[in-house]
């Protein structure tokens, strides 16, 4: 169950757009910064396959300038 956190940098003046785009994806949790052009993205997927599809999806978002991973967890399914 990979859980990862990223810093998402939007293109100029595209913060709202990016927020909407990311929020619409099921596996994503988004926390926008109030005073800076930056969003925190937490992704939570069941397995590596789902993770890969999510990545592809993220890459298609036009308002996203840069996605920098901060931390990632991957633990076995049980418990």
């Amino acid at each position, binding site marked *: 169950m990979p859980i990862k956190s990223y810093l998402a940098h939007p293109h100029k003046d595209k913060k*709202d757009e990016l*927020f909407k785009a990311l*929020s619409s994806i099921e596996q994503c949790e988004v926390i926008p910064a109030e005073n800076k052009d930056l969003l925190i993205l937490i992704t939570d997927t069941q397995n590596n396959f789902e993770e890969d599809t999510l990545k592809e999806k993220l890459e298609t978002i036009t308002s996203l300038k840069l996605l920098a991973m901060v931390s990632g967890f991957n633990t076995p399914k049980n418990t």
Partner: protein
Amino acid sequence: MKRLGIISLFTLLFAVFIIVWNYSYQSGLEEAYIPINNNKPTSYFLENEGMEYSKFDLDYANMPFDENHQRTLEEYYKNRAYYGAPPIIPHSVKEDLNIGRNSCLQCHQSGGFSKRFKAYAPIVPHPEMTNCKQCHVPQKSNSLFSETNFKKGKFPEVGVNSALNGSPPTIPHPIQMRKNCLSCHATPSTPKKIRVTHPERIDCMQCHVQSNNNINISELEVFIRKNYTNEK
């Protein structure tokens, strides 16, 4: 050719000297005006600054475990009016006529066993602040002027701050003025419950994150309850 090289080297040095001298002369002229930094104040205590070892050469890893003279967490909390309050001085103070400084730091800078109090001296996490009695006062009396309704409130508990068996607990308290983790978590005066088992690992915040609802506690008061999605 060699001579030419030496001459050009000296010419170059001379030119550099002229430039440097001119620059320093110019900046000397400007000094009459003190530029005022209009930025927000730099706080004495930055919450998200990295952890510091005590500057005073304590070999924490080799400090004794002295089960007989260990404080309990209850004793540790007892000296505070509320969670986060500066602790009182629980012993009599030799000299009232000073701000603290060396007379307090003698024991509280590096710790050690006090025969007089039969206890290990707790180590101050902010030894650079020397006006100790500004915030810490001894207690001369047990009576009250009048009763109070103020309740102490809850203090953080131990053992409830981790996710899993063995996962690193989060930091349940603010770290303003308490940047030096080891001064409270790895000395002989440390209550058993909050003693760290691995003082040799320096970067505490690598594994222990602050669980106070924000990274920077100082920013809290400016939080405005906003529902981002409802905006425009």
